[in-house]
């Protein structure tokens, strides 16, 4: 359900009527003109349980919006949780007991601009393992300024994650469509999201050499992102697509600042994509989830905001490719989602990862 009203009473009433006795997943466009603290307070008064996040844009059906509230019903909720201090690694993931006779799905929104997200995902996997599917994304503003961006009944937080475990089957497709240009290279020194050395050399020099040769463009003082948005790094992974890391800027030392963390000695390729490869990948992600699903009730799309920055006006083709693939087989399924700062899933049920520049399509049954 999409809510465009900015009247809190109307919003609360709409959410309450929509989810009834279930919980709500609330995805908010970052320019929606409402007071989130007031929304939380009124939802508490109405005894609605919820988790949510603030995103650069939200998805409803075949539309993307900067303003608006997309509501998904969270059925068969086993547990809702809030984890604070993600960057400090100082938290406990709540204990859960899983029944082997049921399938479970875990949905989480995490502050996409905080550090140590990989540790959070690793903790989730360490505690819940293969007993659940994982799905979610990074919340936050396109300005890349860290502010409160995830919320639940307890309030509005930054450096935190909210989540929900549902006794529900989900089928997930993950793809990005970026292909190798050159590599592998070794990130010989990294700190958080900063690449300090590639192959024991200045990282920008290594990157520049490959990218300029392939793109036939020249980096100047102010065009780094214009070129780099088409040349992300890919962390080499066997039996699956690589994990994309997006170089955002270069600092005065020639270090590359990325969206998403890398560790020392990570093996990376330099990737490139085009409109066709990205849109095909998005369609494949949707197809992958559709092929596995049996009786889905809703679809949630988590698509990286940087794909819209790369595809620009053609982004609607990507969204259409996804929605049409779903609707072709399941015309009555409701489709919602968000354009996020990082995506969460487990490729082929493997270890949990935090992606960039990727599409994750989930069909929930």
């Amino acid at each position, binding site marked *: 359900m999409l809510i465009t009203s900015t009247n809190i009473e109307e919003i609360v009433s709409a959410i309450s009527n929509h989810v009834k006795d279930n919980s709500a997943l609330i995805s908010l466009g970052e320019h929606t003109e409402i007071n989130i603290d007031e929304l939380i307070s009124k939802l508490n008064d109405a005894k609605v349980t919820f988790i949510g996040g603030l995103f650069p844009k939200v998805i409803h059906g075949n539309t993307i919006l900067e303003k608006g509230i997309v509501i998904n019903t969270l059925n068969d909720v086993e547990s809702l949780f809030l984890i604070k201090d993600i960057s400090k690694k100082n938290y406990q993931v709540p204990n859960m007991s899983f029944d082997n006779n049921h399938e479970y799905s875990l949905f989480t929104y995490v502050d996409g601009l905080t550090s140590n997200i990989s540790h959070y995902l*690793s903790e989730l996997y*360490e*505690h*819940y393992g*293969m007993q659940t599917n994982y799905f979610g994304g990074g919340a936050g503003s396109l300005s890349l300024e860290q502010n409160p961006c995830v919320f639940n009944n307890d309030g509005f937080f930054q450096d935190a994650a909210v989540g929900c475990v549902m006794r529900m089957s989900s089928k997930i497709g993950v793809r990005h469509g970026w292909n190798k240009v050159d590599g592998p290279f070794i990130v010989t020194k990294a700190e958080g999201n900063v690449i300090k050395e590639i192959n024991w050399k200045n990282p920008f020099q290594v990157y520049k050499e490959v990218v300029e040769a392939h793109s036939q463009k020249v980096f100047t003082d102010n065009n780094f992102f214009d070129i780099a948005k088409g040349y992300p790094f890919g962390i*080499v*992974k066997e039996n699956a697509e690589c994990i994309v890391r997006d170089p955002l800027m270069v600092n005065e030392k020639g270090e590359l600042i990325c969206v998403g963390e890398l560790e020392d000695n990570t093996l990376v390729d330099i990737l490139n994509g085009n409109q066709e490869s990205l849109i095909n990948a998005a369609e494949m992600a949707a197809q992958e989830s559709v092929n596995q699903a049996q009786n889905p009730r809703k679809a949630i799309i988590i698509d990286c905001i940087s794909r819209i920055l790369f595809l620009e006006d053609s982004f609607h083709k990507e969204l259409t490719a996804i929605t049409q693939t779903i609707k072709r087989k399941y015309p009555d399924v409701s489709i919602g989602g968000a354009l996020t700062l990082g995506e969460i899933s487990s490729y*082929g049920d493997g*270890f949990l990862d935090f992606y960039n520049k990727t599409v994750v399509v989930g069909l929930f049954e």
Partner: protein
Amino acid sequence: MKIENHISDILQLYEFSMAIGKSLNYKESCDVFLKLILKRKNLNAAWILEYNENQITSRYSIPLGQEINHNPNPIVSELLNSIQESKIIDSNSIIEDISPIDIQNGTVAIFSLAEQGFLFLFSKKDNLKTKDLLQLQPVINKFSVGLKACKAFSEQQQLLNNLESRNQELSDYAHMVSHDLKSPLRSIDTLTSWLEEDYKEKFDKQGKQQLHLIRNSVEKMDTLINGILEYSTIAKNQIETYDVDVNTLIEDILKIIQVPNHITITTHELPIIKGDKYRLQQLFQNLIDNAILYNDKPIGTISIGANDKDGFWEFYISDNGKGIDNVYFDKIFKTFESLESNMSSTGIGLSIVKKIVNLYGGNIWLISKLNEGTTFYFTLKKH
């Protein structure tokens, strides 16, 4: 294309091998290495079992699972004994029996970790092949050496913790016993002084001598108890360090101890050092007391000085006394080891001295020649 794949494999091995040995904590070490393998190879689980003929025990698992601690059945023993280096098998009821995690269909790679047990890697989607065994074997051998180091470190830490705790208990015990002994001793001292006063007319010469002996013994025991108390409290409180002028310190000591007329003490220019005045006084006073006590020459000389040795000061206290046979050089620093039966000697003074020097990160030693004299040297760090 084939060469490119080989290069990728080798570089991936580099990434895996660099993740080994980043921590000496067993779990952290496993986390760093095994989570990386799970991520890069898109696997689902990993666990380590320690195994001998009588016992199979889980040491680590990701995701977390149930503890395994039971006797291995013959089929499990046969399987594990058959693994020289590594093996891939389809998940089956035998594996399920020795997995901390609930696994069903899939593939399991088992690697021998030599004395560290066996490592199991699990893939739900058939992502483990023979080439993975060949690729991972050398790096897993290195990982097993890392685990051995982790366990050795943990055992060493455990020993140190036990030692620290035993030392603390002993020190507390010495402190408590000393306090408890002082009370009856004070009573004996008071009673004997009353006896001495009230019955001085009735005691004969021998009686008076015996009473005097009792009071001397009480005094010696009091000194000994004070020594034990001091010894047990030296390392108990945090050392406050500030500038202490050793020249002034020695002057103060010489004002409070009795220096016999036939002994001359010469002090050379001494430095200002960082330390705690009370402990430094205990240190110098004990050594000066000894130099006086064991001086048997008609003209006794004691010399106190210091040498600047880069990062530390080397102090010396030299006398022309009886000297010490070199077979006793170590013994004299041990608690309650006195070389001769002397009413003034408790056998604890040099133990206190050594403990203080050690507390300041220094060393103490001596050179001595019988009938010619002794020089005690000790070092104290400058900072």
